């Protein structure tokens, strides 16, 4: 009935998945770095990241637009209105959330598992491997939460993605467009699908958390 649904769902899912992976590449080392800092410094930094969780998505969209528009400093890359720029924007958007979630995990891991590994004669490499093994469940949880935030955001996808049919149209931009057009049937289907995806992920997070405990 609505052939566009499958296309939008697949694109939304893959864009947010890549955004989460991209955010992980810098969020993990940053979280470890912050966790290993002195108390006062890390409190200020993590406080800032906590505050940035609520940063308006449209403002991130606006900043990226200014940077990547043709007259902007990175305009020559030609990324505006591409899926890649949505990936970058979503990755930036979820970074404060992921760092805030992973920071506590790494503080505990560094104070407990790092010391434990060394106390048992592990090399630094073995100690890092142990930490990665022990926190992997928590990192997956943080990633899933980050993913739900990314897939449900509108501001970045709309402002720098441009909502181009078959190219940058994702769940949220498609819903907004369909409502504007008065096509509530498709909007409801897309909304319900997005809700099911987010709900499934949140339930998975709960299950993983229970297993970790």
């Amino acid at each position: 009935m609505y052939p566009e649904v499958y296309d939008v769902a697949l694109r939304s899912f893959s864009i947010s998945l890549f955004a989460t992976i991209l955010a992980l590449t810098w969020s993990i080392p940053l979280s470890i770095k912050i966790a290993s800092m002195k108390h006062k410094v890390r409190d200020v930094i993590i406080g800032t990241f906590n505050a940035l969780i609520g940063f308006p998505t449209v403002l991130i969209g606006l900043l990226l637009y200014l940077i990547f528009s043709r007259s902007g400093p990175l305009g020559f890359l030609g990324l505006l209105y591409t899926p890649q720029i949505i990936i970058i924007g979503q990755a930036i958007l979820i970074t404060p959330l992921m760092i805030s979630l992973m920071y506590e995990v790494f503080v505990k891991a560094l104070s407990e598992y790092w010391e434990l590994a060394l106390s048992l004669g592990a090399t630094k490499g073995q100690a890092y491997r142990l930490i990665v093994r022990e926190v992997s469940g928590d990192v997956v949880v943080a990633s899933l939460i980050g993913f739900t935030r990314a897939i449900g955001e509108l501001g970045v996808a709309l402002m720098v993605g441009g909502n181009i049919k078959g190219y940058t149209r994702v769940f949220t931009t498609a819903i907004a467009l369909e409502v504007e057009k008065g096509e509530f049937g498709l909007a409801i289907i897309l909304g319900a699908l997005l809700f099911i995806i987010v709900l499934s992920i949140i339930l998975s997070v709960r299950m993983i958390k229970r297993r970790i405990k």
Partner: protein
Amino acid sequence: MIELRDVWFSYIDDIYVLKDINITFSKGITVIMGPNGSGKTTLLKVASCLYKPVKGKVFVNGVEYWNLKYQEMIKYRRRIVYVHEKPILLRGKVLDNIAYSLLIRGCSKVEAEEKVHKIAEKLDISYIIDKDVKELSIGEKQLVALARALILNPDYLFLDEPLAHLHLSRRKRVIEALKAMKDKVIIIATHDPFLTLAISTKVVMLDEGRIVRVGESREIVKEYIL
């Protein structure tokens, strides 16, 4: 032998939790006693070369540990084992936890498992060997952490409140196992005067980060506690 010479340690800026510590730990069991916050745990961690002192030197068998190259440090590090007061266990089975310290030393899985079964028998924890650590009581967790240390037969063993969570019947086994390691350097931090009397003759009393007394266990326990 582990020697601490003019050692000072602080976690935050100039607030020292260890002040001018001069002590040598030689073969046998030494107990460190003192009130809460006196620096017992920190002293153990500095002496076991987990924490680098802010000032002063730590010698292991006459070699200044913190001046060693990384590869040398690892060699020394592997002869020293520290067991935390609150047992920290890895995810998974008890067997994997105890075997971990052997596996990182390149021991084969088969050999490691064999040794795990022996130490488990010695500490009477064979019945939990295949259990997930999530299913253990705090006392069982402490025994697993002890087994993981004892299996290495280390030259230097540092134990922070090793019997804190153990039932009386279990304590005897652990004390016997430790007493059997007379040719090793064992340092125990504890509040427990009964453990002190049962296990050691040498006691170091700490107060506000300073060593206030080194002496015979009966004498010190009588003077400070009984």
